[in-house]
């Protein structure tokens, strides 16, 4: 297992849960090679970060638990790769948990039912509100790593792949409740056959 690190992603909202605090403390005590990437997208559903935490920056959480903290512009793919690379290398070298906080803005709703009407207009206009895909594209162009036709072809390829997957799934019939074995246990011999009267 040499060189293996664990990585997990969460949002600004999840940093308010007891599980996050317990995990960070536990991982620090055990000096685990764990990377925690927080996508701080400024809103947990409708709740702004001002109602979520009171520290100056989420990365300040790292100090309290004795773990390394990193911040990164979450809209900048190149910067994310660089910082994540640094964090993973540190964890591999035995430096313990690495808390990486990426700042960005959620540009859509929490779910498809949510029009995100609560997102502050000023934030949308700020650098946080940049579209990370657009930023990545211009970076590729500026570096001369790809040209516009190449980007268009990659996009076309990605869209085709997703559409093919959707088409495949839509052709499938869906699960048949009459063939479902209704067993939640891996140990089949330990299942209860009793389902009330539901059968």
């Amino acid at each position, binding site marked *: 297992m040499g060189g293996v690190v664990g990585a997990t992603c969460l949002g600004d*909202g999840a940093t308010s849960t007891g599980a996050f605090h317990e995990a960070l403390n536990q991982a620090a005590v055990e000096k685990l090679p764990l990377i925690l990437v927080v996508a701080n997208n400024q809103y947990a559903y409708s709740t702004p970060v001002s*109602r*979520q*935490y009171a520290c100056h920056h989420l990365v300040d959480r790292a100090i309290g638990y004795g773990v390394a903290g990193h911040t990164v512009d979450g809209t900048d793919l190149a910067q994310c790769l660089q910082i994540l690379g640094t964090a993973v290398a540190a964890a591999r070298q035995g430096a313990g948990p690495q808390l990486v906080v990426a700042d960005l803005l959620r540009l859509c709703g929490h779910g498809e039912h949510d029009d995100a009407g*609560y997102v502050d207009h000023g934030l949308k206009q700020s650098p946080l509100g940049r579209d990370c895909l657009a930023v990545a594209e211009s970076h590729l162009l500026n570096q001369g790593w790809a040209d516009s036709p190449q980007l268009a072809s990659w996009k076309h390829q990605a869209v085709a792949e997703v559409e093919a997957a959707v088409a495949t799934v839509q052709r499938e019939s869906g699960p048949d*409740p009459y063939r479902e074995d*209704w067993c939640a246990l891996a140990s089949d011999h330990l299942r209860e056959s009793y*389902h*009330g009267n*539901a059968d």
Partner: protein
Amino acid sequence: MSITYLEAIREAQARALASDPRVFIYGQDVGPFGGAFKATKNLARDFPGRVLDAPISEDAILGSAVGAAIGGMRPIIEIQFSDFSAVGFSQIVNQAATLFWRTQVPCPLVVRLPSGGTAGSGPFHSQCMEAIYAHYPGLVIMTPATVEDAYSMLLDAVAVDDPVLFFEHKFLYYHLKAEALPTETLPIGKARISRIGRHMTLVTYSAMVHEALAAAEELAGEGYEIEIVDLRTIKPLDTDTVMASVARTGRLLCVGESWPWGGTTAEVVARVAAEGFNLLDAPPQRLNAKDTPIPFHPKLWTMHRPTARSIAIAARNLMQL
């Protein structure tokens, strides 16, 4: 004018806030956003400083509510989905439920728990957890099935000096409507006969009342008259009304949306079997969801929980026994 089950819950909270300065509402997204289901729509605007957004910290939300209740406030907590109450379970069952027993200090708090299944909501947004909490002494467990009960029972919950868990069913939020809000109601702990019948007693609560009513309508066409008892609160459980109905019909079917192992239906059957065995003309029966997590796929979900169709089948079987 018509009012939905969800609007009734909002109106009850507005009335509680307006009539009692000790009442405040605390929960995730309940403030300017008005809640994930809009059960607190405009309340933050209408009652400034008394409808507060919480961080994603169920343990702290419920713990601070216990403290506020001890301090003389009447908190109404919204847990966004009842499933998430598991994260704050200890505050409810170890702190709130035991407080009066330990200290003689009442703990008047209300926890609203949007509960139960809707198609496609899956294992973490559909659970019926009322029976788990009913197991603990020191809690009142409300499971309203009608718009009128949603309104009046929530006001009752705020008035009670004990912790009340208010399980409001998400399936009823939008499509269940009443003409007007009620002006009078049954006392807490009293069941209601939702339909009179003489061939069988069907005991249920919450959204299953409506599945049971549909099944009874179907069975009426076959000559079976089913009496439906809506428990309204599962704790306290109105054993007298259940027993009186079984005395009239001689048959018992108990239906719940939660899982089959233990729980409300088992409790009702146990009480009737123990105290009213001689009233029964056939073994008491019960119908629950299947003993698996709640399926995401609508086709599986439809078969997972009891429906009018499966209730009618169980009732027909019981009539043959």
